[in-house]
């Protein structure tokens, strides 16, 4: 089984339960790989998680979700105005 080091960014330090959840989801994508989590705490992402390994990036941060909502709100407002 190949070992893959995964960079995991969260706003709070990861609990064991959270680590298991992350590994569970990652194994769905690459069942043959074993994942080692390299933790990084960044309160600015507010919530959720950012996972990066190799060329893959999964941005599930609340900050990015908020950014998307913000962009959608602005687009909708602009559409309504025109």
């Amino acid at each position, binding site marked *: 089984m190949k070992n893959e080091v995964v960079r995991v960014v*969260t706003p*709070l330090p990861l609990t064991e339960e959270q680590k298991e959840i992350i590994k569970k989801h990652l194994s*769905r994508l690459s069942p043959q790989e074993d994942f080692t989590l390299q933790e990084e705490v960044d309160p600015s992402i507010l*919530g959720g*998680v950012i996972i990066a390994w190799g060329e893959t990036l*999964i941005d599930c941060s609340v900050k990015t979700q908020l950014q998307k909502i913000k962009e959608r709100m602005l687009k909708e*407002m602009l559409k309504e105005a025109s």
Partner: protein
Amino acid sequence: MINVDWSIVFQIINFIVLVLLLVRFLFKPAVQALESRSKHIEEQISAAEAQKKAAEELRIKLEEEEQKIQEKYLEMIEEANKEAAKVKEDIINEAYQEGEKIKKEYEKRAQKEIEKLFSQLREEIVEIVETVVVKILNTQITPEVQTQLIDRLLEEAVSQIEEQMEVSYEK
């Protein structure tokens, strides 16, 4: 025999001679002078009539000229009025068009300003909402909530990646 009073005869003869002399030296020149005078007056009258006629013709001619000048003057006045009316209309039209152009330009500018203000307002509203949401989230995201977030968001993201992978395999 008739007794003749010679003094009377002489008086008669003298009278006749006097009359003849008067006729010869007084009446004839007088008549001639009168005739001459009369002729001169007639000539003067004729000349005066001719002058009067010429003056009348000249007066008529001058009146005609005056009439023509008056007509020409009225024509010119009318033409000038028409030209002035046209110039006035042109100026009014030009001013109106210029006014409309300025009005449209200002309306366009005002519309742009309003749109800009609304755009700024929208951005400000969204920024405020974002700030409020961030503040709320900072206090609301507990480790339990974070666990749920990680699970739910990763579930969605991984499902999407799996769907994309399936689509690319099918292709």
